[in-house]
C-alpha cells in the first residue's frame, strides 16, 4: 500500500510517501508499530501516538481502523488550517 506522511511527520520520516508492505499489521495502529520495528526513523516520528492522526483511503478515521483493504494510508499531526 501507499503510505503518506505530512507536516513534521513527513520531515521526521524523511519522505512524503512510500510503498509499504504492511506485513502482519491489520489496523493503522498496528502499522505504526510495525514501522517502528523496522527503522528508528519511525520510532522517532511516531514516538507520541496521541499526536498522530490517520486517513485511510483519504478519509480521516480512528487509529484502530482496519487497513487490510486500503490502497492509501496517510499519517499526520492534528490539522491546523483555516
Amino acid at each position, binding site marked *: 500500500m501507499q503510505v503518506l506522511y*505530512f507536516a513534521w511527520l513527513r520531515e521526521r520520516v524523511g519522505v512524503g510517501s512510500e510503498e509499504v508492505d504492511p506485513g502482519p499489521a491489520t489496523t493503522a495502529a498496528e502499522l505504526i508499530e510495525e514501522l517502528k520495528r523496522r527503522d528508528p526513523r519511525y520510532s522517532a516520528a511516531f514516538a507520541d501516538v496521541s499526536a498522530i492522526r490517520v*486517513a485511510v483511503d483519504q478519509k480521516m478515521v480512528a487509529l484502530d481502523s482496519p487497513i487490510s483493504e486500503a490502497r492509501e494510508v496517510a499519517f499526520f*499531526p492534528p*490539522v*491546523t*488550517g*483555516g
Partner: protein
Amino acid sequence: MSAVSVGPEDFDIGAEIAALTADDREIGAVVSFTGLVREMTAAGALDEMTLEHYPGMTGAALEAIVAEAQERWPLSGVRVIHRVGPLAPGDRIVLVLTASRHREAAFEAAAFLMDYLKTRAPFWKREAGAHGAAWVDAREADDAAAARWGDDRS
C-alpha cells in the same frame, strides 16, 4: 463553479460575493469570513507561513463539510477558498462565504464551516522567522468550537 477551491492563488472577496449572489433575488444575507496571516506568533515575528495540504483528500474533505452545512441550514450559496504554499504576514489564507434568506442561517453556517474546516480539513501551517521554523500546534479551542455543533463522525 465548484463551491470549493484550493490553490496558491489569492482571491477577491468582493468578486466572490458578487458571483455567489448574482441572479438570486431571494438572498437576504451574505456572511464572509476571511482568515489572514498574523505577524506576531508566540515564538516571535513571522517572516513566512507555509500551508501544506493533502492534495488527494483536501477537495473531498472540504466538499463534505460544505455538504453538511447545506444539510443543516437553508443556504442559497456556499463558497470555500483555501490557499496553500508560502504566505506572508497580512496575506489572506481562507475565505468562507454563506448566503441565505435570513441572517441567522448565514452566520451559523459560516461559523460552522470554519470550525469544521479547522478540525477536519487536511492543512498544516509552518511558521518561519528569525527565531527559526516550527509547525503550528492544533488549538484545543478549535476542537471545543467544533464540538459545539455535535459530533457526527462515525
